[in-house]
């Protein structure tokens, strides 16, 4: 299963971002192969609709779960119309976040 983590950096030791829509990077992690890649979030400086576009971006990656500190109302509305599960109140490093899902 592929999961996405809203992160402040492009590596597994980066901190999880408290805000989904405008996080610096999305870490896409495959729980089976343990491979990951980082996608720079193009929506960081969007005037509006950052959350909405961030959802469609990770959806295209085939992600089934998204982890972040919190989600904006529009991001949440968009996520609820997708098959992606929201995991909120996540803090610490990306590694810690992965542990949450895989343990």
């Amino acid at each position: 299963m592929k999961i996405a983590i809203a992160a402040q950096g492009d590596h597994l030791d980066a901190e999880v971002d408290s805000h989904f829509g405008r996080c610096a990077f999305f870490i896409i992690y495959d729980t089976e192969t343990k491979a990951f890649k980082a996608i720079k979030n193009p929506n960081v400086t969007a005037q509006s609709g950052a959350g909405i576009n961030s959802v469609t971006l990770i959806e295209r990656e085939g992600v089934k779960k998204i982890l972040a500190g919190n989600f904006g109302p529009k991001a949440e509305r968009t996520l609820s119309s997708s098959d992606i599960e929201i995991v909120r109140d996540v803090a610490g490093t990306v590694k810690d976040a992965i542990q949450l899902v895989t343990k």
Partner: protein
Amino acid sequence: MIVSIASGKGGTGKTMVAVSFALSLIGVVPKEIQLLDCDVEEPNARLFIQSLDAQKKTVTVPVPVIDASLCNLCGRCAEVCVYNAIAVTQKKALVFPELCKSCGACSYLCPQKAITEKEKKVGSVEEAKGSGIALVSGKLEIGEIDAVSVIKAVKKRVDPQKINVIDSPPGTSCPVLETLQESDFCILVTEPTPFGLNDLKLAVETLRKLQIPFGVIINRCDLGSDCVEAYCEQESISVLLKIPFKREIANAYSRGIPFVEVAPEYRKRFQTVFQNIVKELP
């Protein structure tokens, strides 16, 4: 003729000046006076004008509605929406009306013809008659951000046969530009403080870009420093009037009494300001 009252900084006394300026012209100018409140996020000019027969009209804008039975989730609408007001996930197309700027691109370009438009209320325009003055007030609906559409609706009531005094929103953003366009003259109200000066400079820059002639009224002129006057002199900007900081003015204002009613000597001064404006116009 359109004279707008604007300011870079908020809270400098735009409404106070707009109301008193408009009231001072009643009976001395051979034209009808109309006050238009374009500060639609905080329309308070009407608190100072005793009015009768207010007529309220709704302001609406078109927003898209997607027919799910026709939509094939191709995503073209979300792609063309520069305001990100549409999201198309793998299951559903979603509209966020609060982000929509009613450009119509989505409904025009939808290959499935699945998008129609419905009207959404964004505000209202109230027209009222006071004694010797007509008042038009725009009001943005709570939770809406499309001030520009409401301002446009207010400005439709501009009557070239009348003297139109426009109370602008503060700042230099889109609603302000929408308000000030087509003005024959703009009065910038400021205060002699570092904040007042900084934001006055931004407003001056804006008006020069818009090529609208302007002058400055310094409110609470006896507070702060002479920084604003020095700037105006250096930039050859005319200071049209100076209003001192007075307890009775503030007191009357807080009770909804126009400032020229407690300081009637200012009627003449506002009339002189008007004459000077007329002289400056081509």
